[in-house]
């Protein structure tokens, strides 16, 4: 931002809940929205005498995610206890990873206004989630309630380098993580359901008169409930820090890091506290769990199971199908099965552009209306390809073709069958069409006159008359061709 007196530096800490059936250290369900304290057991509620047992499926999903984020995978990794007291943490310690996380030093590429940018990832580690507390927000003095359903759910913590430079980049990073992890079925990344949480570490570097920059103290912004909130909060916080720096001149290192909560309604960050020291969690290796070793074979297997990741997919779809970046983005956003469907249609129909058109318009709209996923979509790729082929052969116009599409959805018939059932027969007989055109020209003297005066659009009225006469069955391009020909000669 050349005209801004500062540039913003952002690092994001993202927590995602893994899509495992059961929790990280016990067999309880991770299902969202269950009645309070109904998905708990002695292990996740930390009763006396219980012991954790690692969920291997969770570890494998975590490996997948870390590999997709281009991380180094540790061949030896261990669990640590993070000790602190809070009612939503029944053991009053969280089993997490401290100094030997299972992965580190990765990156994720995002699109920015100035092109592609690599955002560094410091580490990705696994830990168990805490429960939820419900406080008496009105300050009525009632007790706080504890729901331990969420306790023990596997969380992946992804810590980025402070490489992000704008609220838009932060949003792009989050969207790319969401796309990637949904694609891999690692997490469904829904901020509304809490399966993706984000804290933003923000500071600014202010241009000084001597050309150097001064860095402001870092603020960690929490309570961000949507990607939009992340964007808004960062934008607000950067400006707030600039204003504060003008007043106080305080630099990073002079005071400790502060935490701030984002107030969505008022659109402001509220500094909560500037702690003199970081909390002392007294980390030590978890004595109830054994370290995990990851062999080269296992790693190779997980790597092989990744499939084509969004970044590679974007490039390939653009190249193979001559689609624009925007087209490709729309496709990719819908997930792998949708892309696979598109590719199948394109291949069978022999027309990627048409396939893309149909898939991202009619098919997508139908899926949204009926709340279906592509795997439950009634038209197979072959059926849709058939429709595209029919249209190209017969020249049936778009409106009628949509009607055929609807019929196919309704009855499950093929394109050919549906066209017959609807009685659509494209009139492509040139002599017949010529007759109709001449009739229409004769009946629309004014339009003809306007056309001859140079108003080319007037021909559309005549074409319209022919189409009405044929109930839309005339082959449009042929009508257009004949019409222009007749008008020239009349």
């Amino acid at each position, binding site marked *: 931002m050349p005209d801004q007196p500062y540039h913003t530096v952002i690092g994001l800490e993202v927590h995602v809940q893994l899509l495992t059936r059961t929790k990280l250290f016990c067999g309880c369900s991770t299902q969202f929205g269950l009645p309070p304290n109904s998905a708990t057991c002695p292990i996740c509620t*930390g*009763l*006396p*005498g219980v012991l954790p047992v690692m969920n291997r499926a969770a570890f494998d999903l975590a490996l997948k995610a870390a590999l997709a984020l281009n991380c180094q995978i540790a061949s030896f990794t261990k669990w640590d*206890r993070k000790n602190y007291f809070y009612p939503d943490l029944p053991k*009053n310690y969280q089993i997490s990873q401290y100094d030997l996380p299972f992965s580190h030093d990765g990156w994720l590429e995002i699109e920015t206004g100035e092109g592609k940018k690599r955002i560094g990832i410091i580490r990705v580690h696994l830990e168990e989630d805490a429960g939820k507390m419900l406080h008496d927000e009105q300050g009525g003095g009632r007790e706080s309630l504890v729901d331990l359903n969420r306790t023990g759910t596997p969380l992946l913590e992804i810590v980025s380098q402070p490489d992000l430079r704008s609220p838009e980049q932060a949003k792009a990073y989050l969207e790319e993580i969401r796309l990637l992890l949904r694609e891999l079925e690692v997490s469904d990344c829904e901020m509304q359901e809490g399966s993706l949480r984000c804290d933003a570490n923000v500071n600014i570097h202010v241009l000084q008169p001597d050309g150097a920059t001064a860095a402001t103290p870092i603020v960690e912004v929490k309570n961000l409930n949507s990607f939009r909130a992340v964007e808004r909060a960062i934008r607000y916080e950067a400006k707030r820090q600039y204003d504060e720096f003008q007043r106080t001149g305080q630099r990073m290192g002079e005071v400790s890091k502060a935490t701030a909560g984002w107030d969505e309604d008022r659109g402001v960050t509220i500094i909560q506290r500037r702690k003199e020291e970081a909390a002392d969690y007294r980390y030590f290796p978890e004595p*109830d*769990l054994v370290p995990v070793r990851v062999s080269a074979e296992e790693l190779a297997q997980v790597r092989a199971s990744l499939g084509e990741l969004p970044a590679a997919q974007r490039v390939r779809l653009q190249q193979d199908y001559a689609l624009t970046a925007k087209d490709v983005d729309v496709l990719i956003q819908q997930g792998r099965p949708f892309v696979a469907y598109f590719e199948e249609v394109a291949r069978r129909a022999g027309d990627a552009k048409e396939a893309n058109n149909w898939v991202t318009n009619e098919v997508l709209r139908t899926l949204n209306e009926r709340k279906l996923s592509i795997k439950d979509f009634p038209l197979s790729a072959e059926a849709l390809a058939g429709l595209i082929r029919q249209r190209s052969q017969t020249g049936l116009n778009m409106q009628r073709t949509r009607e055929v599409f609807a019929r196919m959805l309704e009855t499950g018939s093929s394109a050919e069958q549906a066209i017959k059932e609807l009685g659509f027969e494209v009139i492509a007989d040139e002599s017949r069409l010529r007759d109709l055109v001449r009739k229409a020209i004769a009946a629309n003297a004014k339009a003809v006159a306007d056309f001859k005066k140079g108003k080319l659009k007037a021909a559309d009225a005549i074409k319209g008359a022919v189409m009405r006469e044929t109930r839309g069955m005339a082959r449009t391009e042929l009508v257009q061709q004949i019409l222009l020909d007749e008008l020239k000669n009349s």
Partner: protein
Amino acid sequence: MSLTDRTALELLDALARGETTAEALTAEYLQVIRSRDPQILAFLHVDEAGALEQARAIDMRRSRGEPLGPLAGTPVALKDVLCTRGRPTTCGSRILEQFVPPYDAFVVSRLKEAGAVLIGKTNLDEFAMGSSTENSAFQITRNPWDLKRIPGGSSGGSAAAVAAGEVPLALGTDTGGSVRQPAALCGVVGLKPTYGRVSRFGLVAFASSLDQVGALAHDVADAALLLGIIAGHDSADSTSVDRSVPDYHAAVETPVQPLTIGLPTEYFGGGLDREVESAVRDAVRVYQKLGATVRDVSLPHTPHAVATYYLVATAEASSNLARYDGVHFGYRAKQYDNLIDMYAKTRGQAFGQEVKRRIMLGTYALSSGYKDAYYLKALKVRRLIRDDFDQAFAGCDVIVGPTTPAPAFRIGEHMDDPLAMYLSDIYTISANLAGLPAISIPCGFARNGLPIGLQLHAPPFEEEKLLRVARMYERATDWHRRRPPR
């Protein structure tokens, strides 16, 4: 000898021959408990009705010719730190005074499968923290050999119950010596398995990397039988080792020949009571008469063992006991102003002094600025202690020495000197730090009539050898047949 003075194997034989029934036997033990336990105070809870019901069920199975487990009809007592489904499990603490677990510990399930009659829960130092059972929130158990003296700890209740003839077998737990030391002071056999040999699921944690369930019995053959029942892999305990369990009971009568015994020079220095030393050296001579070679070995890091233990164990305990906060189970203070106040009052009121002391010590050892010098350093020394043993075992089969520096002291004698109390663990603590199996067996008496224990250590997972060597001494002596005056 009355029935209740017999060993478990003798009782199993009597039951098999029909000399008595499980119900009659259980009733007899319940009678001993009724008459003796008001003086001994070994039990916190006695399950009379439940025990008789279990016993009747065994008799029924036997009369129908149905298969019976290896302990069928034998009463067993459980240290009250082992979870028993539907039965109180207090850990000797006010904070769990009302706690009733909805699950059995792994070892409890194994005992039930084996047909044992679970007769009750025994007293202990609160949360297994102590060497005298004086730290129990509820009562102080007495040594059956002298009611003015401590039975040892923390499994004092279990050891006293066996010694007093209230039960033939008991389970305790051993984190720094808490099965072996009370066994020595009460004149019974106490065995601690290799770390990972027996599942810790359902054993309320004190120090996770040190805790193990142990066996208390009248003799080594009984201990071998009991170990065979509780040992083995448990998928619910990630630190439980998946390794086959030898038939300890079948092997125990076979002597080990040739046999080399290692005597650590560091174990015979100052602070060791003369009578204890004398009894231990006599025991070594018995082994020599049986053909064993004796050699000196060195365990140079022995002087650092107690300090290492009291850093590692307390650090783990400070974290393991954090869950006792009054929030979702256990005691909660009645009056408090806010969350922190609730935590402080709940734990302040319901934890005893020793527990608080160890939580503070452990928290300190893990604190930022101190962790490197204390906790991390202790882990390194722990490794060195283990290396000492590995090196010593290269030249001998078992390592032998005293179990305790002195026989049982008087109740109240060390209560205002915690450090003196800690130092009495000097001989037992290294086996926990190194994860090795170790056993204490009776080897004599002091002039004042108090028992003296001999301790043997073996390399990891060599319980079979350990038990066989211990049994050799037992067959050549009869200390283990003595019973305290009634």
